[in-house]
């Protein structure tokens, strides 16, 4: 079985985001970028499936600016076999919407015929949590979202999902789209020899036009602003003082 893993290049989760003063967006110039943390988990899961003999090839794909190459190389260094870069924007500030990403991925799926797509549950930049579900709809495939456990068994996959009430386990027909949550696994680091080897692994470059997908946005961004700041608080000296303040404020 071939596994396809879409990986997104996003601002590193440790970076403090700065909103541009003119309201035009978030400053991404000279900012550390990394693979979306959920996608690292998806890549790791694909590698574990391969190690367990349940997958034979892992193809990673990224859609966006040319620099997403680095993200793909990271996935290759972790253990993916092959990469596809779909260049769909020139400016690092242009985010391709989940619907357009899903349409491109649907074309890649048509071409590659994977038995499983493992995506992240959410990109930590736009926080949309949508692409996997959308791809699943476009392909008419089953979906298992927010997975914290995944067990592939022939024609079916058993997916345990993190939901508001706790955990839900479902059985989905293969081929399936599974989106991964944080507790599915702990991704490995790429070793130096593997980083060197990854440089020789195949990385195909395509454009959105090659797939005939229109990536123009459906959502026009009117403005991007800082959230309302909280008024400064105080440090209390003791539990007594804390209780006093809370009573004063009518909070307890």
């Amino acid at each position, binding site marked *: 079985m071939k596994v396809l893993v879409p990986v997104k290049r996003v601002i590193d*989760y440790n970076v403090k*985001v700065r*909103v541009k003063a003119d309201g035009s967006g*978030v400053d991404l110039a000279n900012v550390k970028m990394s693979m979306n943390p959920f996608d690292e988990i998806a890549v790791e899961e694909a590698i574990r499936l391969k190690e367990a003999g349940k997958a034979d090839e892992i193809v990673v794909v990224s859609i966006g600016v040319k620099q997403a190459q680095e993200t793909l190389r990271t996935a290759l260094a972790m253990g993916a076999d092959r990469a596809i870069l779909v260049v769909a924007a020139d400016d690092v500030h242009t985010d391709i919407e*989940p*619907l357009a990403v*899903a349409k491109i991925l649907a074309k890649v799926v048509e071409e590659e015929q994977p038995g499983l797509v493992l995506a992240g549950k959410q990109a*930590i930049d736009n*926080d*949309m*949590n949508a*692409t*996997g*579900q*959308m*791809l*699943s*709809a*476009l392909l*008419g*495939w*089953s*979906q*298992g*979202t*927010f997975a914290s456990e995944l067990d592939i068994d022939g024609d079916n996959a058993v997916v345990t999902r*993190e*939901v*508001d*009430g*706790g*955990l*839900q*386990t*479902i*059985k*989905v*027909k293969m081929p399936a789209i599974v989106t991964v949550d*944080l*507790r599915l696994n702990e991704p490995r680091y790429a070793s130096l020899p593997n980083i060197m080897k990854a440089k020789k692994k195949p990385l195909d470059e395509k454009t959105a036009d090659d797939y005939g997908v229109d990536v123009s*946005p*459906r*959502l*026009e*961004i*009117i*403005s*991007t*602003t800082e*959230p309302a700041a*909280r008024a400064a*608080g*105080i*440090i209390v000296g003791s*539990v007594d003082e*804390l*209780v006093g303040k809370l009573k004063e*404020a009518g*909070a*307890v």
Partner: protein
Amino acid sequence: MAVLLLAEVTDGALALDATAKAVTAAAKLGDVTVLAAGASAAAAGEEAAKIAGVAKVLVAEDASLGHRLAEPTAALIASLASDYEHIVAPATTDAKNVLPRVAALLDVMVISDVSGVVDGNTFERPIYAGNAVQTVKSNDAKKVISFRTSTFDAAGDGGSASVETISAAENPGLSEWVEDKVAASDRPELTSAGVVVSGGRGVGSEEDFKLIEGLADKLGAAVGASRAAVDSGYAPNDWQVGQTGKVVAPELYVAIGISGAIQHLAGMKDSKIIVAINKDEEAPIFQVADYGLVADLFDAVPELMEKL
């Protein structure tokens, strides 16, 4: 203009708070029709009909709609879509599972986690873990939206909407339910509680998390946790507050042994009063706290319980 709102129905019961908050947001867009779908959903539909501002309720009962599987639920909503300009739901995990699928079936973008309605096409939503707020204008003919419940007040009762029964769409038969693992609790529900007491990695163990739960019970609060506390097995996954967990905005949020990573702040920084107890005075949680106490939690929490 008409709005179709997917009610939050779990095992036949309406999640009133989440649904009523979404009604408040949806009412800004037009006449609200609530869809109650499930293996059993009639009682939930009757309850939704009493929410003020609901014009009509559709009840779809079918075995395929039990357990909130995405494919049959999305197929049903897509089959109803022609009558509505907006298709909305509270931003629960169920809705986040279903709505993007609906949007793609309709060839429109989904607008997730909306925190503000500017007009029928224009919405505000937090991005980058709430470090920025984006205003977006949709150019799609239909708008598919999930509403962040923590920013809208629940609509009251006193409604008397008409209730109509409809049939399910054809089940694509792609997935089936196996089991739910849901812990029953007498505590208030996390996203609707007036007080939330959360513990982090600093609590140190599952046994010591009882301390956090004890304080919560004393305050009649819901219990929350940081990702680190959940990952370490001190607390179940559905207690996680943050960018990828639940978003809460109670009157009082007490963060204990939590450092205050941006991903955690994303889920609680709109709380009215924030209290932080942490032994590290440099912890970033103090930057959002109204009242900070630099102390060892194992001293401070028992003392707090005694003095409250």
